[in-house]
């Protein structure tokens, strides 16, 4: 017999099992006892400066790390957050604000009015609403460490709404040294006074962003009802991990399997599966629909430099066709023939008569009357967007049905975003039409809804140009009474529809999905997800 020892299989098995157990034991995470909220949002955090970019995800990051002077409630009324008390003079020209006690940045330094003034000035140089507000500001000064004063040149009615607005760049308060950064350059640190501290050392761009509870955050009293960005606000969990899962199928499976707790924007196709999944709930994000569809025409080039040519396009729009292609289930969409969000306080039917008829033949006839002779109409067709791609295809089909010569240029959304900024004629790299969406909250206010503007060269892509529209937007900003505001909103929408600032193709709601067996206290909000106040069982 060979002298070599024989293998004992039972002993080997036991040894392997012991190794495996040891390996599993070493895998216990250090933060196992902490309450961790794992959330998948619509995008990953790549930019830390919410003023430098208008990306929604940068604003969500900003609202966790930084605090704001005011926060709008569900009715879009501004309510104090960092501000304790404020006073407005009778002539509406001088606003005096006093900050709350115990406001501290994450580095331990106190929040002073010097920080507030520097932050607002930076925001006022970059953000559209901020620029507009500051065009009426005569002086912004610190009275003392806790009190600051804003003096206006004339009584602008949107001061508090602008400070509390949540679409595009939010007016967050940074440290004065960070706010001194050129607004065209990114602030390198993310040190705010908000409910969560950003753990920069754990940040893996494109994968994970981590936020830890700010134990020093002076929460607003729980007696104030938490509503959108207003009212009670506190860090409800020890740690928030924003995990970026780019594949929606995988994100849905991870939620069902309990690997994540919160999924901001599941695909509409997945709603029936999520409705049946154990422990998972779908939730409406607010009282307004989250998304508003828009077809933007280029006013600089034929045939859409002629108002008749633009109006012709209304005859190609049957919103039901768009919404069925994008959403499918009527439970989640709404026909809306207005430019101001339907269902919002200012939503109205001004100009809705343009949608009374779907008639491709008439569309072509009107286009011909506007001078169209069968030249190719360049449509920027995004190929990689969940909603814009199908909406563009519906539009192209309607245009072809009318006999319009469509030059559909397929490209990824990043290329559309780049190309739509070109003012050259379509044959030289420009464009005639692109499709996009905007948020329901921003679109509910004529001033905050920047796509409603018609400021010619200074406006957004498509460059609509109409002095009357701009005058009405300005009038709205100075209106002080609700009835006056409602009348101006109606007149504005009527005029903007007549000029075809853009063509709406309906609105729909994006549900969020979460583990109802683990989470409590979610504050619904349309547009910008609210992650504070959530507690974990």
């Amino acid at each position, binding site marked *: 017999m060979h002298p070599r020892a024989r293998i004992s299989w039972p002993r080997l098995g036991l040894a392997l099992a012991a190794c495996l157990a040891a390996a599993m034991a*070493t895998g216990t995470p250090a933060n196992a006892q902490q309450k961790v909220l794992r959330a998948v949002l619509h995008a990953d955090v790549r930019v830390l400066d919410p003023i430098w970019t208008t990306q929604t995800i940068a604003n969500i990051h900003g609202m966790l790390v930084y605090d704001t002077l005011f926060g709008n409630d569900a009715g879009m009324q501004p309510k104090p957050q960092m501000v304790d008390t404020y006073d407005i003079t009778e002539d509406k020209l001088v606003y005096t604000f006093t900050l709350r006690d115990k406001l501290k940045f994450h580095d331990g330094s106190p929040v002073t009015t010097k920080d507030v003034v520097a932050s607002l000035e930076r925001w006022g140089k970059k953000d559209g609403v901020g620029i507009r507000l500051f065009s009426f500001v005569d002086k912004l000064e610190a009275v003392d460490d806790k009190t600051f004063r804003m003096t206006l040149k004339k009584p602008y009615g949107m001061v508090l709404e602008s400070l509390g607005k949540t679409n595009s760049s939010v007016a967050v308060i940074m440290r004065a040294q960070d706010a001194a950064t050129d607004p065209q350059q990114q602030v390198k640190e993310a040190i705010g006074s908000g409910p969560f501290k950003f753990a920069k050392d754990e*940040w893996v*761009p494109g*994968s994970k962003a981590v936020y830890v509870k700010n134990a020093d955050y002076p929460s607003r009293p729980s007696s104030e009802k938490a509503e959108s960005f207003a009212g009670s606000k506190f860090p409800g969990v020890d740690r928030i991990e924003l995990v970026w*899962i780019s594949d929606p199928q995988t994100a849905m*499976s991870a939620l069902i399997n309990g*690997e994540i707790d919160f999924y901001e924007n599941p695909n509409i196709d997945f709603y029936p599966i999520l409705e049946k999944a154990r422990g998972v709930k779908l939730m409406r994000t607010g009282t307004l629909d989250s998304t508003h569809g828009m077809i933007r025409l280029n006013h600089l080039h034929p045939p859409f430099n002629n108002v008749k040519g633009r109006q012709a396009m209304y005859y190609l729009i049957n919103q039901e066709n768009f919404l069925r292609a994008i959403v499918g289930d009527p439970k989640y969409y709404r026909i809306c023939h207005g430019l101001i969000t339907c269902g919002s306080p200012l939503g109205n039917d001004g100009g809705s008569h343009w949608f009374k008829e779907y008639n491709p033949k008439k569309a072509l006839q009107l286009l011909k009357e506007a001078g169209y002779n069968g030249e190719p109409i360049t449509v920027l067709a995004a190929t990689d967007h969940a909603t814009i791609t199908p909406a563009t295809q519906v539009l192209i089909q309607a245009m072809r049905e009318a006999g319009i010569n469509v030059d559909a240029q397929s490209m990824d959304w990043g290329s559309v*975003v780049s190309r739509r900024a070109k003012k050259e004629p379509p044959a030289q790299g420009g464009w005639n039409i692109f499709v996009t969406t905007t948020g329901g909250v921003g679109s509910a206010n004529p001033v905050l809804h920047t796509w409603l503007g018609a400021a010619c060269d200074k406006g957004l892509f498509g460059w609509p140009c109409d002095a009357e529209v701009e005058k009405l937007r300005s009038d709205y900003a100075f209106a002080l009474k609700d009835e006056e505001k409602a009348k101006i909103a109606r007149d504005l929408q009527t005029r903007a529809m007549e000029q075809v600032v853009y063509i709406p193709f309906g609105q729909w709601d994006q549900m969020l999905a979460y583990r109802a067996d683990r989470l409590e206290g979610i504050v619904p909000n349309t547009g910008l997800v609210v992650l504070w106040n959530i507690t974990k069982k």
Partner: protein
Amino acid sequence: MTAYILRRLLATIPVMVVVAVFVFFLLRLAPGDPAAIIAGEDATAEQIAAVRGKLGLDRPILEQFVVWVAGMLQGDFGTSIFSNLPVGRLILQRLEPTVSLTLSTLLVAVCFAIPLGVLAAWKARRLVDRLVMGFAVMGFAMPVFLVGYVLIYVFAVRLGWLPVQGYRPLAEGLWPWAECLILPSLALGITYMALIARITRASMLEVLAQDYIRTADSKGLATRRVLLLHALKNASVPIVTVIGIGIALLISGVVITETVFNIPGLGRLTVDAVLKRDYPIVQGLIIVFAAAKVLVNLVIDISYVFLDPRIRY
């Protein structure tokens, strides 16, 4: 041999230069503008132009190229346009998941495919052979994402044995690391199993027809010994070549697998950077991938010397 290795390493320099020139200029020719993405939905053309100016993207392309190459020569891959973090750091953060996935996939593929290929060759034109080749055809035909979704549904969602997604570093423990890699490795490995199994079978069939194998059989050697020691060793050169090609193919394969299983590796970093037009990241990654491919080829070439003593450099 040392001279050969040095020659091969020197030959990588012109390769890398060509890659650098191509990747830089092709990226600039492609449509898309990071400034427009950064500036956001509501930015005017003037605001986009301002962002472009601050990022230095309005400078002449040649000037941008010289700045990038000068940085590269000093080991600086540049800074991400979006996150403002060094590209080198971003690549290092993502290296471990991709290397882990690549190695585990290779391990799975080689461990299953070579025995299956040998078995198929030994039992050529019989039922076992047909089953193995049927599996190989299926492995080629099924897209990775489909296999991935099926595995997730069965083993994670229905049975709950393994996680749906994510990656845990090896430093957190062997099992947490391994459990995240099992399903992705299987999903990605099936194609390579099919490829390696087919090549192993073909190569083995050729060797098994040789006279010396007949001689080994005739002198009464055990079948296992004939197959593994005499036949497989001599059939190994094409198999190793295919494994080498497989490593290069894996680099593209991990892009989909990392997306489906949400593994924060280099593949996902590449896709995200391309979609966001984050030029410095894409440039840095292409250089790293090119260098990896050149090195893998070199290692494979060197391994031939050990597998076949007739080969000399």
